[in-house]
């Protein structure tokens, strides 16, 4: 390797293409510096600085949406920049921003230090953004692990409660197991694709493009198939797809509510971007669709069925939303299955994710305000009479849940519609039937929640030794604004998709 080759390789490190991630990274460091530099009474400003920074990055990203690097590979093929990547970047930034807003409310009830939380959220967000653009297994693994390890910490952040720590431990073990599976899959693929005896082998088999070329030339390789299955199961853990969903209820319940939201939305979305990159129409595993499609189909069906049935019996809303999130993962998997035969599918997934983000954060926002100091203890009963106590929160909750349920004027419905259309285009009819049934079932528990908030009144349980339920925190100005905006966006995006819809359907 000569010096010139090195310089060439180094020249491909186009740092300017990563300005949002770099901004987040620097911002994260700046938070720590501020903590040291600022006097203690000014510390409450730091979260605002973080949120403002993320907002600024988001605005900057949207203004520079069509940056020069779009469509290019940078960092020697580690990253691939695309419009979809830009959209997901915006998605993660939005998710981070909302998480921070929720954290302001939730952390205020906890004696834990604040600034580290924001720092970790920033770094995790940057990792997610890189993950969405990764085009190489090394990049994938490193970004995924950064994200996962950050989340381990965030999940167990409320260390004064046992639930949070237990959730953290469970997430850790499951997450590490999935990382192990994923890693071994990657290793197998890399090894097989590098084997000189096979056609189209490559020295840089970790690159998606090279791998896709290899797989296309070796359609029935056992080791490659095994690798693919392992990689898929690793990702299935992250997105909480059946049969790797067992961690979801416990972890969602135990984690701090903002983190649950972050997990439910951003982490899941990150998993799906990876899945799309691998199993999508031009993904690395495209040549093995005869293997991936049945696997993903079965997974999607089981996920929808399990998620919905399990959610039916839940009384803790965090578990409920976790399990309903499992069923959402199933719907999204349906979209992934469809990508092979439907040009709409990828766009549908992105739209679904956005709708899911808006709705989930609306619901989690309400949950954050309704919850007491024990973050894991959020029963359905606590919502009884919410409409009378705080109509605003109740309305936001209803809109959010309605959107999650996929009730029409709301964005969630459009997401489901797109998914269904693309699934039908791809011919996954039985899956569609299951999904439709799943939607009906999901109505039951979502509506049960709305029912609790609107139709019921709180009566303390007969044995009055149980403590009274927590009183909802009235939302502050910022939080109210954010929640209102989320609810409004959920409604508006249902009516009018605008340029976003154009982009989805014409990509």
């Amino acid at each position: 390797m000569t010096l010139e080759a090195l310089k060439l390789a180094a020249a491909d490190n186009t740092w300017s293409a990563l300005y949002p991630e770099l901004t987040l990274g620097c911002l994260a460091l700046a938070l720590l510096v501020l903590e040291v530099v600022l006097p203690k009474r000014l510390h409450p400003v730091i979260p605002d600085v973080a949120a403002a920074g993320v907002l600024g990055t988001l605005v900057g990203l949207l203004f520079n949406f069509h940056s020069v690097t779009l469509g290019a590979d940078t960092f020697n093929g580690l990253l691939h920049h695309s419009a979809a990547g830009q959209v997901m970047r915006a998605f993660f930034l939005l998710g981070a921003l909302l998480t921070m807003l929720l954290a302001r409310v939730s952390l205020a009830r906890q004696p834990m230090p604040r600034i580290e939380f924001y720092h970790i959220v920033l770094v995790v967000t940057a990792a997610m953004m890189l993950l969405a653009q990764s085009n190489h297994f090394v990049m994938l693994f490193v970004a995924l692990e950064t994200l996962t390890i950050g989340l381990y910490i965030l999940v167990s952040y409320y260390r004064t409660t046992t639930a949070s720590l237990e959730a953290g431990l469970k997430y850790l073990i499951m997450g590490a197991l999935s990382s192990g599976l994923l890693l071994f899959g990657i290793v197998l693929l890399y090894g097989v694709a590098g084997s000189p005896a096979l056609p189209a082998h490559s020295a840089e088999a970790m690159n998606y493009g090279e791998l896709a070329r290899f797989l296309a030339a070796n359609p029935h390789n056992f080791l490659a198939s095994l690798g693919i299955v392992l990689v898929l199961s690793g990702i299935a853990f992250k997105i909480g797809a059946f049969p790797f969903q067992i961690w979801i209820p416990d972890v969602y319940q135990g984690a701090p509510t903002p983190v649950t939201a972050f997990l439910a939305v951003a982490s899941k979305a990150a998993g799906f971007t990876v899945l799309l990159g691998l199993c999508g129409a031009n993904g690395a595993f495209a040549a093995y669709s005869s293997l991936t499609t049945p696997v993903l189909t079965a997974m999607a069906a089981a996920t929808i069925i399990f998620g919905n049935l399990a959610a039916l019996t839940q009384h803790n809303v965090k578990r409920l939303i976790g399990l309903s999130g499992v069923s959402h993962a199933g719907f999204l998997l349906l979209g992934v299955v469809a990508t092979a035969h439907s040009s709409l599918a990828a766009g549908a997934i992105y739209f679904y994710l956005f709708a899911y983000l808006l709705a989930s954060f609306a619901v989690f926002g309400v949950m954050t305000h309704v919850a007491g100091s024990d973050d894991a203890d959020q029963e359905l009963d606590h919502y009884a009479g919410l409409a009378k106590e705080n109509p605003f929160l109740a309305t936001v909750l209803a809109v959010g849940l309605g959107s999650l349920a996929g009730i029409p004027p709301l964005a969630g419905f459009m997401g489901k519609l797109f998914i269904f259309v693309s699934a039908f285009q791809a011919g996954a009819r039985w899956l569609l039937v299951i999904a439709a049934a799943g939607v009906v079932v999901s109505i039951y528990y979502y509506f049960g929640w709305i029912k609790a908030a609107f139709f019921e009144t709180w009566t303390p349980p007969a044995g009055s030794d149980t403590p009274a339920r927590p009183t909802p925190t009235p939302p502050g100005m910022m939080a109210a604004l954010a929640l209102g905006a989320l609810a409004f966006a959920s409604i508006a995006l249902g009516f009018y998709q605008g340029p976003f819809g154009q982009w989805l359907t014409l990509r």
Partner: protein
Amino acid sequence: MIAPTLNAYLALSVLLFALGLLGVLIRRNTLVVFMCLELMLVASTLALVAFSRFNGTMDGNVFVFFILTVAAAEVAVGLAIIVALFRKRQTIQIDQLNTLKN
């Protein structure tokens, strides 16, 4: 004596990986489970190095760096969680970690 072929290395790493996985599935002590997880990662690195050596490629070797670093970070965080939990619950047996139940 088994000749050190690629298959032998691969089988070895699969065996180690499987042992790790088995440990994760059957052990109840979280610390040991965690060790088994590390064993899985190490098994992966073994396969990676073997592939790199036999295929004459470099990426795999470099990947091992990343895996090692990630494993270190993971262990640090994981042990911190375990210790914090132990302080609360005085147990680290998986069966007894049942605060979260419906």
